[in-house]
C-alpha cells in the first residue's frame, strides 16, 4: 500500500490569530517597506500592474488589496505529472507528498567514509533508485554535475531525471538558454507543447534573496518560465538571525513576503500560471552562523508555512527531512524524521529535501534515500491518522471474542492488519538471534544492500524513439 496525497493538518503550530498577525505584518512590509527588484523586465511588469516603483532604488511596493487580487489569480491546485500517470500528484489543500531535494555539492560513500564532488552519473543512479522507492513521490534533481560547463548543466540534469524515472521531475535552473532547452526537450517527451501544458512532467525552481530582494537573473528567469506556463516554485530561504529576524515569527513574515513576490510576478506575467508558494526557512548555528538543516525550529517554521499557504489558498513547497550529521547515525535518523513529520502533520503539500540529504544539505548519499524512504512511509502513516467507524471500532467482534479470548484468528485481523499497520521495508524487527544470524547488520549496511540491488537491477529509460529524437535534436546532451 502506497500512501500519498493523504490529508494532513492535525498539527497547527499557529493559531488563527497568529496566522492573521503574520499576514497583516507581511502586508505592511509589502506596502510600507517594499522589496527590491533588480530585473528590469520584472520592474516594468510590477509598474504596469499598479505597483509604486522607485526606479533608482529598484524598490517595489504594492497595496495589500492589489497583492490579494494577484494571489486570487493563482491556481489553488496544481497537478504535477509523472511520465507514468500513476505518479501524478495534485498539490493543494492539505494533501501531503514527499520528494527528494537538492542541489548537493557532494556525494558521500559510507563504506569509504569519503565524499566527492557529484557527477552526472550520480544523478542518474539516484534517479533509478528513487524510481523504485515508493514513499518518495516526486524526483527533485538532487545534485549538480560538477564535470559539465554551466551551459550544459540544465538540459543534462533534466535529461538524467526524465531518462531514469517516470516520476515527476522538478529542478533548479541555471541559464536562460538552459531553461529553453529543457522546455523543448520536455515538449518532445510529452508529445507536443500542448501536451506538456496538459500534463506538465517537469517543473522549475528559482529563488528570492531574503530579505526582500529579487535578483536580476532570477527575476528574468521567473518571467521566462511564467511566459512558458511551466509550473514554478519561487521559494525564499530566510535564515533566522542571518537573513531574517532571529525570532520564528519574524522569519515567517520575511518568508511570506519573499515567497509572495515570486507568486505576484508570475501572475502579472501570465495570470493563472501554476505557481507554488515555497519555504526553505531555516535556522543557523549561533556558534558560527552555519546553516542548519535538521533543527526542530526548521520543522516548526515549515509546518507554520503550510498553514500560511493554506490561508492564501496556494499550493505549498516545504523543506524537511534533512540532517546536519556527517554520517548515517542516530542524529541523521531523528533529525530527518522529526522535521518531515512536523511538515507532514501540518499538511505541507510537497515536502522537498525529504530524502537523501545530509551535512547541512551539502552532501547526498545513496543509502540515505533508502533510509528516508522508510521514514517517509512511517510519516505518511502518521498523516493517515486513525480511522474510526463501525468496522474499525469492531464492537461485534469484541462481543464475539468476549472476555479472555484472542484476535489472532479473527478474519477482522487478517482483513485489516496490512493496511492498518505500516509494514517496514528496512527496519529491523528480528529477534537478536535472527539478526545475528543474518550478519548483525546496521541500518545503513542494510540500506547499502538495498541501494546496490535497486541500482543494479532496475532500469527505466525513455521509449527508444523519443529518446532518439531528444538526442538528435538537442546536441548538448551527454549520453
Amino acid at each position, binding site marked *: 500500500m502506497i500512501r500519498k496525497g493523504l490529508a494532513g493538518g492535525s498539527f497547527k503550530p499557529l493559531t488563527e490569530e497568529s496566522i492573521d498577525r503574520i499576514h497583516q505584518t507581511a502586508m505592511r512590509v509589502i506596502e510600507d517597506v517594499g522589496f527590491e527588484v533588480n530585473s528590469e523586465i520584472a520592474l516594468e511588469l510590477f509598474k504596469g500592474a499598479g505597483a509604486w516603483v522607485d526606479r533608482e532604488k529598484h524598490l517595489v511596493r504594492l497595496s495589500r488589496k492589489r497583492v490579494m487580487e494577484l494571489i486570487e489569480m493563482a491556481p489553488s491546485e496544481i497537478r504535477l505529472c509523472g511520465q507514468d500517470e500513476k505518479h501524478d500528484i495534485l498539490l493543494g489543500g492539505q494533501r501531503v507528498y514527499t520528494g527528494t531535494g537538492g542541489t548537493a*555539492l557532494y556525494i558521500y560513500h559510507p563504506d569509504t567514509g569519503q565524499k566527492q*564532488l557529484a557527477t552526472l552519473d550520480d544523478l542518474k543512479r539516484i534517479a533509478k533508485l528513487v524510481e523504485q522507492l515508493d514513499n518518495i513521490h516526486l524526483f527533485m534533481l538532487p545534485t*549538480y554535475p560538477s564535470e559539465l560547463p554551466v551551459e550544459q548543466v540544465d538540459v543534462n540534469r533534466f535529461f538524467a531525471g526524465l531518462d531514469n524515472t517516470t516520476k515527476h521531475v522538478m529542478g533548479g535552473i541555471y541559464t536562460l538558454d538552459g531553461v529553453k532547452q529543457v522546455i523543448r526537450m520536455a515538449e518532445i517527451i510529452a508529445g507536443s507543447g500542448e501536451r506538456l501544458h496538459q500534463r506538465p512532467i517537469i517543473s522549475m525552481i528559482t529563488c528570492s534573496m531574503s530579505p526582500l530582494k529579487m*535578483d536580476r537573473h532570477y527575476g528574468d528567469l521567473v518571467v521566462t518560465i511564467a511566459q512558458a506556463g511551466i509550473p514554478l516554485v519561487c521559494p525564499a530561504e530566510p535564515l533566522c*538571525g542571518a537573513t531574517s529576524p532571529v525570532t520564528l515569527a519574524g522569519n515567517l513574515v520575511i518568508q511570506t513576503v519573499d515567497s509572495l513576490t515570486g507568486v505576484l510576478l508570475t501572475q502579472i506575467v501570465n495570470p493563472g500560471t501554476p505557481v507554488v508558494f515555497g519555504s526553505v526557512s531555516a535556522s543557523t548555528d*549561533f*556558534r*558560527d552562523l552555519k546553516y542548519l538543516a535538521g533543527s526542530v525550529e526548521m520543522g516548526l517554521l515549515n509546518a507554520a508555512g503550510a498553514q500560511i499557504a493554506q490561508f492564501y489558498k496556494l499550493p505549498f513547497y516545504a523543506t524537511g527531512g534533512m540532517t546536519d550529521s556527517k554520517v548515517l547515525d542516530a542524529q541523521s535518523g531523528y533529525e530527518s524524521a522529526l522535521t518531515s513529520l512536523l511538515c507532514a502533520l501540518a499538511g505541507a503539500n510537497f515536502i522537498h529535501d525529504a530524502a537523501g540529504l545530509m551535512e547541512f544539505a*551539502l552532501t547526498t548519499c545513496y543509502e540515505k534515500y533508502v533510509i528516508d524512504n522508510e521514514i517517509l512511509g512511517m510519516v505518511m502513516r502518521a498523516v493517515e491518522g486513525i480511522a474510526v467507524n463501525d468496522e474499525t471500532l469492531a464492537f461485534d467482534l469484541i462481543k464475539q471474542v468476549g472476555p479472555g479470548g484472542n484476535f489472532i484468528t479473527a478474519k477482522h485481523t487478517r482483513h485489516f492488519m496490512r493496511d492498518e499497520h505500516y509494514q517496514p521495508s528496512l527496519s529491523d524487527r528480528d529477534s537478536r538471534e535472527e539478526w545475528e544470524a543474518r550478519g548483525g547488520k546496521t541500518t545503513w549496511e542494510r540500506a547499502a544492500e538495498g541501494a546496490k540491488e535497486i541500482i543494479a537491477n532496475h532500469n527505466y529509460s525513455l521509449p527508444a524513439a523519443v529518446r532518439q529524437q531528444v538526442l538528435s535534436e538537442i546536441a548538448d546532451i551527454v549520453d
Partner: protein
Amino acid sequence: MTEDILALIKGNVIQGRVTQDDEGFDEGVVGQPGVSELTEKALARGIGLRDIINKGLTEGMDIVGQKFEAKEYYIPDMLASAEAVGAAMEILEPHLAKSGIKSKGKIIVATVEGDLHDIGKNIVSILLRGAGYMVKDLGNDVSPQTIVAAVIEEKPQFVGLSALLTSTMIHMRDTIQALTASGLRDKVKIIIGGAAVSEKFAQSIGADGYGADGFQAVRVTESLSSSKENKGGDHG
C-alpha cells in the same frame, strides 16, 4: 586615568558596544559611553595609539575569543565586539597613517561572479575587521574585471574570494588569471573560501590560502601577513 579609559575600552569591546546607545552582553549599560566615544576620549587625552590598540582593543578581543571558545559567546556577540573594534580602528586610522604605525593591512573581499551567497563572506569581513584589518567589501556577483579594478584602486595586500556554487567556483580561477594578466598577481595574496571549494581546489587554481570558516580566514590571513612582510611586497 589613562588606565581607566583603556580598561573601559577593553570592557566595552567585551560588551560589544560601539556607541553609548548600544545594549551590551550584561544588562543596564545603555547610556554609558561605548568604544567609539571612549576611543575619541582616549585620543583627546593623548593616550598612545599603541596602548589603545594593544591594551584596549586587542586585549578585549582576546577575552571575547576566550568566551567564545568556552561557548559562553555566540557569533552575534563576537561580531558586536568585532564591530566595536572596527569602529575604533576607523577613528584611529588617520592618526595611524600620520604616526607611521602600519595597520595590519588591507583586504578586498568579494563573492565571485554569478554567485549571490554572501552570508559567509560577510562574516569573514567582520571577523577580519575585528582582527584589525582594513576591509573593502565589494559585495556579491563580482566580476574578475571589477576585482582587478579594485586592486588597482585600493592597493590591498590581500584579496579574499568566496564561492558556494559548483557553477561559480571556476570564476575564482578566472579572477586569479585576470589579476595575473594585469600584472597584479604578485602584489596580493589570494585567499579563498566557501562551501564549494577546498584546500585542494585552492592549490589547483594557484590561490595562496584557503579558510574553511571565518576563524580560519583570520588565521590564514595572519599567517600570510607574516610571510608577506618577509617578502616585503608592496604596490609600486
